[in-house]
């Protein structure tokens, strides 16, 4: 009997250690644990015994490269492999200065490399964007849109902070309008209405239109994040730069913007992840990116009704890609913010 009370006391001690202090706590924890356990066992049971993973295994290529010509599939695969390799070296290695430089340059080259490998051109067969699809399309949509939206966002943020009244009004109007409209409406506009805005005979292909739509949409959000960064650069930094004789342009370029961008990294990361997730909206508007190609696969009579398998598989891919982006951004942020800590100054 004594031993049992001792055991219970020990257990209670253990429980307290992980933060369970009273009966209500214990009760809530118990209920939640049971719920989590039940869901998990059901889910695992389904994954291993009930799900029919044929819809995934037989279409693996399609999820990654879409309708890209099979003979040339090495191109998107090569690109994605390089991205994965680069992500892991960036995440795993503790890097010295030179290697760091090298890796940043590699990251900058990823986009032109991706365009070259997917679109072809010099020395390799050109492939129309119409054949792009799957994860490779999702990634290239995200990367290019972000890289275009970032400078536009910076200009918009500076415009909104400017004391030139007309520029300030126009940029503010643009930002506020963009931010009050749902993304799908902008994408709808890009896919279905921009052709009406163009002169006769001029065509812009739909991937570029999608990139354009994403860029103009995201740039408004990016500009607000950067504006937040600009506002949190202390006034005395600007004063110190003025005293050194720097002009307005130089102050923005060398002092304010770099610091604002570093401050804005976490917010910008969220924008990038949000953008990647939102590329899935193109499935509604006819592009066969990751979700779009999956909906096409589900239309194949062989795979009718395999929704759950496909959705779980997609969730896994999206989750992995987004998590990797988040981790990469954290690494970059840590690197830059080493130098930046205003608390130390004030």
């Amino acid at each position, binding site marked *: 009997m004594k031993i049992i009370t001792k055991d219970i006391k020990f257990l209670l001690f253990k429980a307290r250690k992980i933060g369970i202090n009273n009966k209500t706590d214990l009760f809530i924890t118990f209920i939640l644990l049971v719920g989590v356990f039940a869901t998990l066992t059901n889910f695992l049971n389904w994954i291993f015994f009930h799900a029919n993973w044929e819809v995934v295994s037989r279409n693996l290529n399609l999820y990654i490269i879409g309708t890209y010509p099979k003979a040339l599939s090495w191109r998107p695969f090569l690109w994605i492999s390089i991205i994965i390799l680069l992500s892991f070296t960036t995440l795993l290695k503790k890097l010295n200065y030179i290697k760091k430089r090298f890796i940043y340059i590699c990251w900058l080259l990823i986009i032109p490399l991706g365009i070259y490998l997917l679109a072809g051109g010099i020395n390799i067969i050109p492939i129309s964007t119409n054949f792009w699809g799957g994860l490779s399309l999702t990634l290239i949509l995200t990367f290019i849109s972000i890289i275009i939206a970032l400078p536009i966002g910076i200009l918009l943020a500076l415009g909104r902070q400017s004391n030139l009244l007309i520029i300030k009004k126009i940029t503010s109007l643009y930002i506020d309008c963009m931010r009050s409209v749902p993304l799908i409406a902008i994408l709808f506009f890009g896919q279905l209405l921009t052709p009406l805005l163009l002169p006769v005979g001029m065509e812009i292909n739909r991937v570029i239109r999608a990139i354009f739509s994403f860029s103009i949409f995201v740039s408004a959000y990016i500009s607000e994040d950067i504006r937040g960064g600009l506002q949190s650069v202390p006034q005395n930094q600007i004063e*110190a730069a003025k005293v050194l004789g720097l002009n307005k342009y130089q102050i923005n370029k060398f002092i304010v913007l770099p610091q604002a961008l570093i401050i804005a990294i976490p917010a910008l990361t969220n924008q990038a992840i949000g953008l990647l997730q939102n590329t899935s909206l193109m499935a509604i508007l006819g592009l066969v990116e990751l979700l779009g190609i999956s909906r096409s696969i589900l239309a194949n009579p062989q795979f009718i009704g395999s929704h759950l398998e496909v959705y779980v598989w997609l969730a896994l891919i999206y989750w992995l890609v987004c998590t990797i982006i988040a981790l990469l951004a954290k690494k970059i942020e840590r690197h830059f913010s080493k*130098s930046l800590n205003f608390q130390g*100054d004030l």
Partner: protein
Amino acid sequence: MSQTIIAKSLVKSFSQNKLALNDVSLEVQKGEVLVIMGPSGSGKSTLIRTFNGLERIDKGELNILGLRLNSFSNDEIIKKIRKRVGMVFQQFNLFPHLTVLSNITLAPIQVQNKDKKHAEKSAYELLVQMGIEEHAFKYPKQLSGGEQQRVAIARALALNPEIMLFDEPTSALDPERVNEVLDAIKSLAKKGMTMIIVTHEIEFAKEAADRVLFMDEGRVVEITTPEIFFTNAKNERSRRFLNQLSK
């Protein structure tokens, strides 16, 4: 001796009912070290900040190195003045995202269009002069307060200014770090730099100042040599201030 700074009846107010500067006039000679003292809120910082246009004056006129500055002066004049007048702040205000070396070379490269190598060489010499050459490639955050302030002095000196303004350069430092900065300022004084220093350090003022200016409520109360000021201040207000400081 020639005057490098002539201030005539400066008036400046931030709010309607209180004047930050109230009819301030003074002259500073070339090579002179002027220490400004006074209780907080007396207008010391405001005064020194008008000398390089960080604060615009409402009335009166300034003549800095032959350039006239009044309430109507345009940005061009202010830019010209800033290129010839260096300033060091209480909070150092180093650029946290740049290394020590880049902090110093930024203005010479961008403002004076010096080539990078030349600018870095001069910067290194300044760092040696300040005794912090081993920190050249560190970021400001990695240095102590005293070291940071010496970087800030080097950064101001890199433009070869003819006048240096110090706005309470030691107030934000740990007591044991104060002297390393003051020593650096003293060595500048020995080289004949014209300097205007706002500070509360009595010993330093006694040792380095040519003249001491005492301000209160936006007015110049007294302007005299340190010997007279610290031993035999004429004004009742100055004596009270000194008493409080020495406590």
